[in-house]
């Protein structure tokens, strides 16, 4: 058997973090802030330096997807997105017809903005709708109503976007199964191209977690949340949407290519404060603080050429980077499984073998047997996949591989 642990494909995804939100939602623990809008111009300058830096050193990789996440990227004033995208095109090798996604909030989008976004080359929208029930939207502290969401979606279609994803949340305080079914049915009706359904996690330190701990809001029932997940599966089963990941459904051919990069454990560079990256078998992230991020990027010389450096050097000398971790082969295997099993395509013996030069059945013999025994996984002609039950207990499966 040929062992070639150096196999790495040469594609790259780019994530750009926009750490600004008009207001901060009470459940959110993302690295995003409200009230620091005055930093935006300096932030754009900084991220353009960062793009230059990484573009120089990673220009042997070709970029397939670009993702503006946040925060609320759509909240950026006009002109800035364009400047950032131009910089990406200038310093990175971009494949033809890349997938370029932007996350939007339904309330800061109008026809002008949409037309502008379309002009910049962005071709995929991801709306944080979360619910189509106004009471639940209030509990979530969202700035939009269900009507705002429906209108924004219609306008986006008018502006010519033909790849639109909607995010919804279940397992919310006070949410009933009927409310959830209604939201889903309404969503299907307006015919988006992609759906992401996430269970609310109560993150430590968030205002929502605190309200629940102090019994101001009832704690969501996790058994009910499980029912909601199962119900969503049933509702979507007889539609055009295919489940391609534990929490994601899309029309055929409209999977999120960007998120597939993560799940297939491939390379990406995350820029902006708190951005996470995985290149050259190394995981690392930028510091969270936007102010510090801007400050440290002042030290990067915009006129210097960085492309001669070794990859490890570029990572080490980047002043915004912290938590650098080299991923050993064994850990890479575990991560590949943890991520890949989320996908309905599963993990094939062949792809594992191709990547690691080893048989997945030899390396993880016991773990696989246990998971199959518990009815959480199946081996379908050499491809390992989670069962429906396995989707609900994915952690129990992943745990066995670490």
């Amino acid at each position, binding site marked *: 058997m040929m062992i070639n642990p150096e196999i790495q494909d040469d594609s790259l995804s780019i*994530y750009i*973090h926009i750490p600004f939100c008009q207001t901060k939602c009470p459940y959110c623990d*993302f690295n995003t802030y409200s009230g620091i809008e005055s930093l935006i111009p300096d932030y754009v300058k900084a991220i353009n330096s960062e793009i230059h830096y990484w573009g120089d050193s990673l220009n042997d990789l070709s970029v397939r997807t670009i993702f503006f*996440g946040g925060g609320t990227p759509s909240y950026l004033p006009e002109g800035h997105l364009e400047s950032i995208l131009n910089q990406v095109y200038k310093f990175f090798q971009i494949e033809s017809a890349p997938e370029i996604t932007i996350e939007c909030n339904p309330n800061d989008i109008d026809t002008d903005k949409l037309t502008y976004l379309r002009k910049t080359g962005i071709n995929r929208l991801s709306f944080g709708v979360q619910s189509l029930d106004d009471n639940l939207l209030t509990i979530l502290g969202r700035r939009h109503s269900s009507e705002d969401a429906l209108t924004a979606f219609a306008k986006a279609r008018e502006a010519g976007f033909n790849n639109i994803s909607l995010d919804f949340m279940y397992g919310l305080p006070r949410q009933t199964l009927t409310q959830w079914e209604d939201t889903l049915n309404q969503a299907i009706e307006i015919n988006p191209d992609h759906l*992401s359904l*996430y*269970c609310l*996690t109560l993150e430590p330190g968030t205002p929502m977690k605190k309200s629940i701990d102090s019994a101001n809001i009832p704690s969501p029932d*996790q*058994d009910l*949340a*499980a*029912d909601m*997940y199962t119900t969503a599966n049933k509702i979507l089963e007889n539609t055009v949407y295919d489940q391609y990941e*534990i*929490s994601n459904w899309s029309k055929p051919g409209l999977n999120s290519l960007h998120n597939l*990069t*993560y799940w297939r*454990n491939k390379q*990406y560079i*995350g820029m902006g404060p*708190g*951005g*996470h*990256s*995985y290149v050259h078998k190394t*995981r690392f*992230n930028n510091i969270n603080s936007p102010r510090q991020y801007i400050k440290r990027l002042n030290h990067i010389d915009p006129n210097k050429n960085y492309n001669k450096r070794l990859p490890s050097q570029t990572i080490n000398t980047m002043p915004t980077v912290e*938590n650098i*971790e080299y991923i050993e082969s064994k850990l890479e295997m*575990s*991560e590949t499984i*943890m*991520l890949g099993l989320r996908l309905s395509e599963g993990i094939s013996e062949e792809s594992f073998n191709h990547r690691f030069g080893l048989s997945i059945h030899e390396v993880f013999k016991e773990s696989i047997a246990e998971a199959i025994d*518990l009815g959480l996984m199946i081996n379908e002609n050499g491809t390992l996949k989670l069962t429906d039950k396995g*989707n*609900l*207990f*994915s*952690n*129990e499966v*992943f*745990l066995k591989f*670490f």
Partner: protein
Amino acid sequence: MKTDHIRNFSIIAHIDHGKSTLADRLLEITGTVSSRDMTEQIMDQMELERERGITIKGKAVKMSYNKQGSRFQLNLIDTPGHVDFGYEVSRALAACEGAILVVDATQGIQAQTLANVYLAMEHDMTIIPVVNKIDLQVAQPARVSLELQQAFGFTDEEIIFVSAKDGSGIEDLLAAIIERIPPPKTEYNELRALVFDSNYDPYKGVVAYVRLFDGHIEKGSQMLMMATGSKADILEVGNFLPRPTQTSVLAAGEVGYIATGLKNVRECRVGDTLTLTNNPSTKPLPGYQPLKPMVFAGLYPSDGDEYLVLRTALEKLQLNDAALVYEPETSAALGFGFRCGFLGLLHMEIVQERLEREYGLNLLITAPSVRYSVTKTDGEEIEVDSPAKLPPTHLITEMKEPILSLNIVVPAKFIGAVMDIVTAKRGEFVRMEYLQNNTLDESVPDSSESRVLLEYRAPLSEILMDFYDQLKSRTHGYASMDYSIFGYKAAPLVKLDILVNNQPVDALSLIVHKEKSLQQGKTLVERLKNLIPRQMFEVPVQAAIGNRVISRETIRALRKNVLAKCYGGDITRKRKLLEKQAEGKKRMKRVGNVEIPQEAFLAILQLDR
């Protein structure tokens, strides 16, 4: 040095009354430790001692002190205050002529104060009463002084007031040590050294901590242990300053250590008398009562493959903790492990923590049990320290359980509350004594504030179960207690079995009083229901006596276990979350296909809540 310039003394007190802090001040004022090197409770060097802020092992230290032109050698032994380690106090006392009795000026006499004073009196020691913490606002030195006079017959002039914190009164104390404590007396020329403690050093073998009563000893001498007959060439002798420091010779009256090079602690037992091979003594010193463990529990590696690691770890730990006993045991539920005997629950906890910390083990400790005496129908009498070893009911004629003599010190207004708790624990009242005659004390207007000593007899098994917590909470923290084994008494006892997912889990079985069995079975099952995490399937939990199920609960099946969305490629965080879950699972034991956490095995300790 002539023995009349030597003073040997222990510091004894109830827990936390400031023994180790007082030792700090003595070390400082005598220049044994420079103020630069001084840390709080400098003698408590064990990691667990520092973390918990208590003394676990007794420790000796030699100090020098000049008084009116003469140099004195002062040997101090600091002792632990916790009741589990009471044996350390009697060992220390046997090595001394005097004892400093420390009493906290905010608390007065407590249960271990009494116990320790009686011990010192048994040893015929000179006791120097010291009222400590007088720097505190709430201190009541006059009242505590009166209490000491009335309870033990000290005179007003005898009592010394100090603050071990700010150092006031320490000079007076030193003067009293020199004046009042008699110098050691020697009777013979032949070496007699009492081994009052020991330690194991990988290079020096067993290191005996000794008090020399007669003769002298130096490196190279050939020593003989009088009880075991073991011989060895002495590798090193020295003093504690407080670090072990080599010296040329140890002479009669001194306290120090002897490195024996022996590889087996059993060859150099604590309490034995050490003498010289070529000029042996024929009169051993009075030794110690052998230690009797009070509590027994199974120790199992969470990962069955680590059984041998655990065995080695226990062997090594025993070299430093003579109170620990163990023997191999097998459990149908938990596999191979060891039945261990401990002096009490704190001792048990400390042993578990030391094994995990110092040897990197993940351990599971089963429900603790006391040692019962069982008479079988064939007349044989056996000791049973584990419910699993109990013979079937039809083969038992009688079961006896260990009974404690329990001393509780509490303000009079709580007598009713204490009576209630003790009665609920099947205790019997023996006597009551006022520590303080109220009419003499103007500072105590209310007789309900004066303190009493309550003596009871109660089954050890009941006192183990959260008795102390209840006592503390019902008396607002004012009660203190001390106990010792009184004897054995027949009782109607039954074995309560626990079934998890329809399988009996032997490590959860317990022996309970018949009349309490229904209630305890019910409570235990309810607690287990909350302690055992939900599994992917429904899990019934039952309590049974013989074949009769007396209580049942069901742990509902878990419906999902998924991680939230993986945002912006932060895979590391996800992995860390998984690793944390995996870590949590490691701390659980799989019984059948159910994962049972450590807390479940200790649930019986809180059955009476």
